[in-house]
């Protein structure tokens, strides 16, 4: 959207979306392994990970002074920083970019927090359109079982405590995730997200993903016939 920004270029952008506990990160890691082993250049990008913006977001979260609007804007700043610094250069260089969460996360969360849907949509106009956007659909109880069983320390904003849905952090998290899930269902229609049934076995989901990604790899240059043996990330 910004005139000064170059276009997407020759690369491919693959993103995964879904509520916490949907298994999307696991699937993306497996996809990354598969791509690297075939010798494709891969850049990984993660939601809310820009070093520059992190300080501000962390400050706001620690002190709990973020409002729905500033929450929305700091995450957009993070996304912009990663777009300009990581995503666009990698795509223009003709490589693969894998993103764990993308603008749809903001569209879901910010709207649940009460920001105007049209405002968030226009805000993210600068986002590169993904080649493929996977949505890992999972029933709330399944996701909650995976999350609440595994980690015991839910964080304030993560649980949507700022929305005052409940004083109990676990209950707040449940209610918050339920609303996010509803948003994802709407977004999946609006943006034509590729739906993966996240209740299937890990192997089945991964096989589906690879089958969908494979034809999109045509024309992407590989760095070698066999990828380097390396640990991910």
């Amino acid at each position, binding site marked *: 959207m*910004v005139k000064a920004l170059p276009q997407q270029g020759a690369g491919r952008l693959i993103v995964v979306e879904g509520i916490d506990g949907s298994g999307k990160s696991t699937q993306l890691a497996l996809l990354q392994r598969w791509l690297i082993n075939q010798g494709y250049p891969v850049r990984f990008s993660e939601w809310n990970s*820009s070093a520059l913006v992190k300080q501000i977001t962390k400050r706001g979260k620690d002190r709990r002074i973020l409002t729905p609007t500033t929450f929305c*804007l700091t995450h957009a700043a993070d996304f912009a920083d990663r777009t300009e610094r990581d995503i666009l250069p990698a795509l223009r260089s003709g490589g693969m970019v894998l993103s764990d969460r993308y603008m749809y996360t903001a569209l879901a969360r910010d709207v649940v927090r009460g920001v105007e849907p049209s405002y968030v949509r226009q805000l993210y106009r600068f986002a590169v359109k993904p080649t493929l956007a996977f949505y890992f659909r999972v029933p709330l109880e399944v996701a909650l079982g995976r999350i609440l069983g595994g980690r015991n320390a839910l964080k304030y904003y993560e649980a949507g405590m700022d929305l005052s849905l409940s004083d109990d952090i676990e209950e707040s998290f449940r209610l918050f995730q339920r609303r996010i899930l509803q948003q994802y269902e709407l977004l999946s229609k609006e943006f034509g997200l590729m739906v993966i049934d996240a209740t299937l076995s890990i192997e089945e989901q991964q096989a589906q993903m690879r089958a969908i990604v494979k034809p999109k790899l045509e024309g992407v240059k590989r760095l070698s016939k066999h990828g380097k043996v390396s640990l991910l990330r």
Partner: protein
Amino acid sequence: MERFRFYGSGLPGVKLDDLRGKLIVVEGTDGVGRSTQVVLLRQWLEQRGHAVFDTGLTRSALAGKGIKRAKEGNILNLLTFTLFYATDFADQLENQIIPALRAGFIVLTDRYIYSQIARAVVRGADEAWVRDLFGIALVPTSIYYLKADLDHLIPRVAFTRGFDYWESGMDMRLGRDMFESFCRYQTRMLEIFDRMSNFYGFNEVDANGMVEEVFEKLQRRVRELLNHKNTATAR
């Protein structure tokens, strides 16, 4: 009293009918003497018995320090930079400006969204996108645009604090040195301000004169604003 409104979709949860104060914005390019005028205006308004709350850019608890640090390293890209400023603005708007208006204060701001819009647009940002981004802003009661020619701006900057990296648009590589860059950058900024003046309905104040002369003009305008019950709000 006229009801406040937002430029765009605004902020969630704000009841506009509760805002009883006035929002007065002083805008203008770098070196025009804005801050001096704001100080004088504040003194005078308090003398008249108005409670004044003054604020400026990049002072918020949330992003103020982050912006400063990032600028020191010159490491921000355009979009990120613009979003940082918007975050900071939103934080101030929600936590300072709106509560002060609710309490019936005259909120006096040294610059508002317009400087930020100009800064982004001059660097090539999509104007409609930036304008929409700042659709969270309240439309001020009045926007006083201190307007001076480049010839008047140059000595004011050169003989006071000197040329600053960002005010000279050095990141844009417009000239061989800071002076040349400053002139080209500020010329472009003035053009953008003129455009915004029409779009947002600025109240233009000739700022080519000496501090006292400019203040008299500004004072006259503000007096008119405060004496009229049905003041015309900015566009």
